[in-house]
């Protein structure tokens, strides 16, 4: 009965209660959303590369190399010579080496020049290999393999003919429209940047640039595909390479050898180490976001305490009535604390509902735009702990007006002095 009356009392002040719940809900959504994006981003990044022992590239920072070679974020500062790549591939420790040539795009999707070994050795999410949803790896000079998102967005099927553009960007004035490629295969969805890549052979990259120089077509040098096939298409350089070793134990030795390579300035990174380095950079921003969202929750809870405090004066009568019929001061304290707890719980519930609704709506967009896969999973233990913390905070915030009410109801005695 008392609980029912407390709810009626709250319903009587529904507008302030509603706004308070909304403020708490938004702050909870923000806090849990930041956490979801943080863990989602970390998982997406950590899951993108697996089974590769070293990443090879021109001399640059390890994080930069990881970002452009694996995540296709940013561009390489320099390429590495093909002869250098071949020399490193022939080292006895090296089990396999997959070269990667970047720099071109197809309707906004990156073109990745590589070898057939890419489909064999590239691993993601705890040693999962690439699978073909349709077709097979490229076998011919003018064949391409597209990722799942490319196929879905552009409606490509095996056997379709596509045009490859020079440079990056969705539209390019300089279209290599005389070199139609055939789709040989479509990869299954991986949740990594592979989904948004068009894969061709290294020779194909050379081929689409053979009659181009300095970003413009050389006039009069219009070669037919047949004439191109007759040329020597061995690449002169590539952007980066993924390396697998026979034994992980040799990783540091090979890395040192590459970093000290005399003929050309090179960098080799261990993907795990580069990721840790990336986290340490991103970690500061993450902490800042977490602190800001936690402060938002604190603000919302203080707002609730203020709201309850503000209603105390008009509710002194209510408390005097309850005291007169035999309610203990502890009952009054309990009522107000329960009110705070109920408001907080409602705020948390609405906030979690908002969060999952927002996730449901933005998930495909975030996945497509940033390659971050946000799982629609139940709250993690960490998030559960945060929710419990917020509830405890709500009860604690409720103690402030409750203690004031206690003081008032003791000081008023039974008759409210007005």
């Amino acid at each position: 009965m008392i609980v029912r009356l407390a709810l009626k009392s709250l319903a009587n002040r529904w507008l302030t209660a509603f706004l308070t719940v909304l403020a708490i809900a938004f702050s909870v959504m923000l806090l849990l959303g930041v956490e979801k994006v943080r863990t989602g981003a970390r998982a997406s990044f950590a899951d993108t590369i697996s089974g590769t022992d070293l990443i090879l590239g021109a001399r640059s920072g390890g994080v930069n190399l990881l970002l452009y070679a694996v995540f296709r974020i940013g561009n390489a500062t320099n390429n590495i010579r093909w002869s250098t790549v071949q020399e490193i591939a022939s080292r006895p420790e090296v089990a396999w080496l997959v070269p990667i040539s970047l720099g071109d795009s197809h309707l906004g999707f990156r073109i990745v020049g590589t070898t057939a070994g890419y489909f064999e050795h590239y691993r993601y999410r705890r040693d999962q290999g690439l699978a073909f949803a349709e077709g097979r790896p490229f076998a011919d000079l003018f064949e391409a393999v597209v990722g799942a998102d490319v196929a879905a967005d552009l409606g490509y099927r095996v056997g379709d003919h596509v045009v490859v553009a020079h440079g990056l960007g969705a539209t390019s004035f300089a279209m290599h429209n005389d070199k139609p490629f055939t789709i040989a295969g479509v990869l299954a969805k991986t949740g990594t940047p592979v989904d948004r890549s068009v894969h061709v052979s290294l020779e194909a990259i050379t081929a689409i640039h053979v009659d181009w120089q300095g970003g413009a077509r050389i006039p009069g040098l219009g070669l037919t595909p047949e004439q191109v096939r007759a040329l020597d298409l061995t690449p002169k350089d590539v952007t980066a390479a993924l390396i697998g070793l026979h034994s992980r134990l040799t990783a540091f030795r090979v890395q040192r050898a590459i970093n000290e390579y005399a003929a050309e300035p090179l960098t080799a990174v261990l993907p795990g180490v580069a990721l840790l380095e990336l986290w340490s950079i991103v970690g500061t921003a993450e902490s800042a976001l977490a602190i800001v969202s936690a402060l938002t929750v604190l603000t919302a809870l203080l707002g609730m305490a203020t709201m309850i405090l503000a209603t105390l004066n008009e509710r002194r009568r209510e408390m005097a009535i309850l005291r007169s019929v035999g309610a203990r001061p502890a009952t009054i304290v309990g009522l107000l604390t329960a009110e705070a707890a109920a408001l907080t719980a409602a705020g948390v519930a609405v906030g979690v509902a908002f969060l999952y609704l927002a996730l449901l709506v933005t998930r495909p967009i975030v996945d497509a735009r940033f390659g971050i896969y946000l799982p629609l999973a139940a709250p993690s233990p960490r998030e559960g702990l945060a929710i419990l913390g917020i509830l405890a905070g709500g009860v604690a915030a409720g103690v402030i007006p409750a203690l004031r009410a206690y003081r008032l109801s003791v000081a008023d005695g039974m008759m409210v002095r007005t």
Partner: protein
Amino acid sequence: MADGALGRAATAAAPPAIELHAVRFHWRGRPSFALSVDTLRVEHGERVLLAGPSGSGKSTLLSLLCGVVAPDSGTIQVLGTDLAGLPGTRRDRFRGEHFGILFQMFNLLPYASVMDNVVLPLHFAPGRRRRAAERGGTAAEAARLLETLGINAGLARADAARLSVGQQQRVAAARALIGAPEIVVADEPTSALDRDSQQAFLDLLFAEAARVATTVVMVSHDASLAGRFDRVLRLADIARVERGH
């Protein structure tokens, strides 16, 4: 008048309803105000009017009588129990069980229904709940009281805030009387009513109180009500208020 005398005669042998002795009290945090009562005795079933202007310590005296606060010294015997010696929680339970209390106005929880307001004390007083239940169920007893006090049964489900002041006071009276507590304490319950309503209200309240020989202690500054009571006590004669600076 006749039933009042009857009530007193019938219960003359019983212990007094209320007996204060050498009570001294001051509000915590307000050392400049102190109230002392040498002796006050109200017989069982008696109707007593405490007359006095505001500032004469009536609110404080009622708070002491009902056990909302405990005196610094002295004894407050209510129905044979010394409230001064009880811890706060026990006093609260005692008040809920043995007192029906009526304020000057704003007696009701405005968001709750009339029925919820009437049965509210039963939640805190198992004895009163049992007595109300024995009279045909708590809801039926509440409805009977409302009916007796002139509140239409159709209003029982309405929000208390929608009633007129006069109706609200009668609902409050029903709440004070439900489960037949031994003592009804009323703090100027009729001051918000016009003269005709005052008389009618007292008629109903006294008639119902007489049925179960309830003791009535009422505070008022309105001397015209004096004739309706067994005894009129001037607050100034029984309580001494000391004001510091």
